[in-house]
């Protein structure tokens, strides 16, 4: 665990302690279970976002995708009465295809990630609303999917199954990001795409793969969110979720320029964000201030981190000059 991650963990614990001191319900089983479920749902999509951000890209269509894919999923199983495993696979494949298209537009047609995914944000939201004719997608009275509901909203050993899923996904993705050849390529591309290309890496394919991973994880979290809310009004479902994901990554030490960040960081970032949401509720802060609290904390966090970096760079420079008094090379 890096120093950055450790700092974030300590911040999470300190905030948790303060909240508990004011309102002990923070540590109640029901609150912890609820919060960890939300951490899981947002965590899965934040990991996807992190893979894109590490390449120096961004994925803004996440929230709209959650609405579109969630709507489709509920429609498939509740209205069209598809077997849910089949619907599940279709939704995941759809997420992968959309991620592929984004990556293809960005790498082959050289469009900017911001532009491509901003268009995605608008398009998928519009399609979702059109698909339900601006109505609400939901289950009919008495419709039950015991296995699916257990897997998405159930609990084992007191832990939400969604949270267990997050842990499994996080471990797998940690290995992919930090130990695999693919992960090394991702970092190399994020640091310097040109140099990576000159080293013989097929940068286009790697970047497309990052968007596919983001699409798949987004699709998975779309299913979780759909089963969590159980009814979706596509006009508002998932709104701003891309920003939660980006915020979690930034809090977790990711640079939007790419090439920096860790999987532990993005998970801790998600935890902190959900903790803050929880804090607003538990401390009786007007919920209208929700976003303001989040924005404020992120700003302070990024500021502290950046100033710390400046301080360290200065100290390193002073040390370097001391070691090498007349550093100027001859010609």
């Amino acid at each position, binding site marked *: 665990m890096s120093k950055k991650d450790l700092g974030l963990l300590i911040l999470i614990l300190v905030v948790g302690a303060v909240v508990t001191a004011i309102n002990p319900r923070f540590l109640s089983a029901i609150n912890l279970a609820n919060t960890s479920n939300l951490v899981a749902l947002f965590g899965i999509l934040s990991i996807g976002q992190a893979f894109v951000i590490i390449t120096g890209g961004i994925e803004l269509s996440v929230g709209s995708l959650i609405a579109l894919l969630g709507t489709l999923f509920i429609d498939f199983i509740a209205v069209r009465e598809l077997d849910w495993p089949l619907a599940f696979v279709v939704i995941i494949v759809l997420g992968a295809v959309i991620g592929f298209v984004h990556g293809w537009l960005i790498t082959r047609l050289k469009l900017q990630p911001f532009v491509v995914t901003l268009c995605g944000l608008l398009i998928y939201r519009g399609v979702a609303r059109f698909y339900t004719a601006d109505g609400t997608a939901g289950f009919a009275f008495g419709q039950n999917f015991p296995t699916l509901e257990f897997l998405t909203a159930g609990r084992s050993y007191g832990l939400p199954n969604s949270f267990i899923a997050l842990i499994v996904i996080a471990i797998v993705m940690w290995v992919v990001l930090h130990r695999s050849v*693919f992960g090394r390529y991702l970092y190399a591309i994020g640091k*310097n795409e040109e*140099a*990576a290309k*000159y080293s013989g890496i097929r940068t286009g394919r790697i970047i497309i793969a990052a968007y596919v991973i983001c699409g798949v994880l987004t699709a998975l979290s779309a299913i979780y969110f759909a089963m969590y809310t159980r009814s979706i009004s596509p006009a508002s479902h998932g709104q701003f979720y891309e920003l939660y994901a980006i915020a979690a990554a930034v809090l977790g030490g990711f640079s939007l320029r790419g090439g920096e960040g860790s999987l532990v960081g993005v998970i801790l970032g998600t935890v902190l964000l959900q903790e803050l949401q929880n804090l607003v509720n538990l401390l009786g802060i007007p919920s209208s201030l929700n976003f303001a609290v989040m924005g404020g904390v992120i700003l302070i966090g990024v500021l502290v981190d950046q100033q710390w970096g400046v301080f360290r760079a200065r100290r390193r420079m002073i040390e370097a000059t001391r070691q090498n008094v007349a550093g100027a090379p*001859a010609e």
Partner: protein
Amino acid sequence: MAHRLLSGAMTSTETTHPNTAPFLSLEAVRKTYPGVVALDRFSMEVRPGEVIGLVGENGAGKSTLMKILGGVTRPDSGTITVDGIAHDGLTVEQSIGSGIAFVHQELNLFENLDVAANIFFGREPLRAGPLSLVDRARLREMVAPLLKRVGANFSADAPVASLSLAQQQMVEIAKALSIRARLVILDEPTSSLPMAETEKLLDVIKGLKAQGISVIFISHRLHEIERVADRVVVLRDGTLAGTLAKERINHDEMVRLMIGRMLKEREKAGEAARAPGTVALSAEAIRTSTYPDRPVSIELRRAEILGLAGLVGSGRTELARVLFGIDERLAGSVTLDGKPLNVGSAADAVANGIFLVPEDRKLTGILLDLSIAQNITLPNLPAHARRSLVATGAELATAEKQKKNLGIKAPSVLTRTGTLSGGNQQKVVLAKWLAMDPKVMILDEPTRGIDIGAKAEIYGLMRALADAGVAVLMISSDMEEVIGVSDRIAVMHEGQISGILDKDDFSQENVLLLAVGKKPKLLQAAGGLE
């Protein structure tokens, strides 16, 4: 006000000023850096209205001299006398105050602003009133005589981005004149100019001289120095190798003073002339996007270093980029070992054993934020992995081996490459390819910005590669390097190979003649072809 004072000072005659006293002189100047004597016992004088050619190979001490004159560095000892007042060293303010102005190779202009705004940037005449608006009319009045003096054929309103390189240099010179410059130092001003533009610049230099302004003209292009200089100062290894008076300025004399040492090395290399190997890579009538109308063909032979010379912009780098698959090949064919080869990306080239050490080390050669080990294994990572997971042990083993073989000076293979010196960074670039199995190695300006010691090591590595049977293509703008290191020299001119020189015909003159598209003087022409 500035230019009025100047016009008073420049009513002198247009001939040289042999009798005028020097206004600037350096005496026994010495400057050392840790481990290097950059300049030693160096003396020179500058008289008004004199054009001094300053030549010397890279590392001879020209930059140090410039830094001392510009007030950026203080000499360890020696005196600098300006207008009769002796100084131990100049400050930047004193340098500017003495009327010393620089025009650097890389221009410092705001391309989005017009000519007038650039010349008086930060010193614009203002209109009265609380808003401090720029007085455009007055500005134009001030700029007009300056532009006339540099012989500008463009208007003060022209945006700098619309000007040619030579015109932009005129703007820089006009800027220098606007601060009452008495000495304008031009650092390699023609190295990136096409021929016609160079003529214009040489005219500007003559114009300055006619106005009584002194010029120090630094250039590797000796024939240009021959044409404009009144005197040539030659630097070698930080000392004054000699001064040539006007009547003694000629190409051979300059080369003799500059590279006496190098000529010997060349003879030595000449003895080891070898039988050329078979053709490894052959490009037939390929076209690059820079010169889409000009097909270029080249053959790289095994066990040979082929030097690729030519002026900046002649299409050498573009050719390398096409061979390495970075740029698209517009036409033509490439064969490797006689088999047709389709390289659509750098990954294809790497898979076929064609490697490139690119021109811009920091942007494309290495990843500064990654460690030495990570850089070295990057092109061949799957070979250092088990089930797609990086095997750190194998990775470190490869890196340690390369670090030792190449003598990369770093605390460990886990050191960030960004903290290494230029020479060591370049060795990392080489190491990543040497760790694989090169068939064809293309090196684009492999020793640019590298200290002399590391240079020699890199030459040694290239030779070792060739000895091991690799086809080596070395692109270089350093004439001595091209002549000293290559087995054959191909020269490019405006997108095409204008000629290939065999060892017997190696000379700076021949390379230059081919580089400007003229015929070389070949030995075989006299002795007949075999």
